[in-house]
């Protein structure tokens, strides 16, 4: 299983801080597209992805147990 974390406007859209999903074998892009469609997530082209707390490319393949986070454009500072 994989823990999928959402932040900022994505958390509001999904209505949960995280989901538990089996995403192993999928690419980051596939998971993103799937969740984007299911939850009607806005502005996903601007959203980065982190796998195990490090930025990941769209073609990275997710393994069982990876923690995935969708990172909207940041606004700290």
């Amino acid at each position, binding site marked *: 299983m994989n823990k999928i974390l959402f932040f900022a406007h994505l958390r509001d859209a999904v209505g949960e801080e995280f989901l538990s999903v089996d995403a192993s074998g999928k690419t980051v892009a596939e998971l993103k597209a799937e969740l984007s469609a299911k939850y009607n997530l806005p502005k996903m082209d*601007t959203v980065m992805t982190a796998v195990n707390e490090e930025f990941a490319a769209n073609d990275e393949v997710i393994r069982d147990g990876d923690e995935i986070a969708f990172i909207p454009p940041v606004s700290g500072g």
Partner: protein
Amino acid sequence: MMYQISKEPIDIQAVIDKVVQREAGAITTFIGTVRELTKGKKTLFLIYEAYEAMAVKKLEQIGQEIEQRWEGSCVAITHRVGRLDITDVAVVIAVSTPHRADAYDANRYAIERIKEIVPIWKKEHWEEGEAWMGNQLETVAYPSGKPEESDLNE
């Protein structure tokens, strides 16, 4: 702990004290505060949210970049999360270096990098509503799914 996310108000002096070193000739401190007016729009308060574990890692990365780029530098950064009112301190960056010019440059580099790669978000609350802020104009897209090298190394 040179890099922290804090739910409590930041002790500015404590951040500065972390970078005191005998080799230093300068310490610069950046204090980011909550502004009331942005383009004429009045902010009531802000909520900052972080992906804390990754945010700390990315602050550490920024510190390492600075220590490689400016020899003899020492960096400490604390970013606040939770509800902040106008004038509250959102972030404190302290940098010490052997010479003053480097302390200014390295500190500026740190805040610009925070705005690029550290997973922290602010929600603005105005009189007439609220919204999560991305980069201010929502003009940044990441077609490959992560920041480009040029975003990361400018």
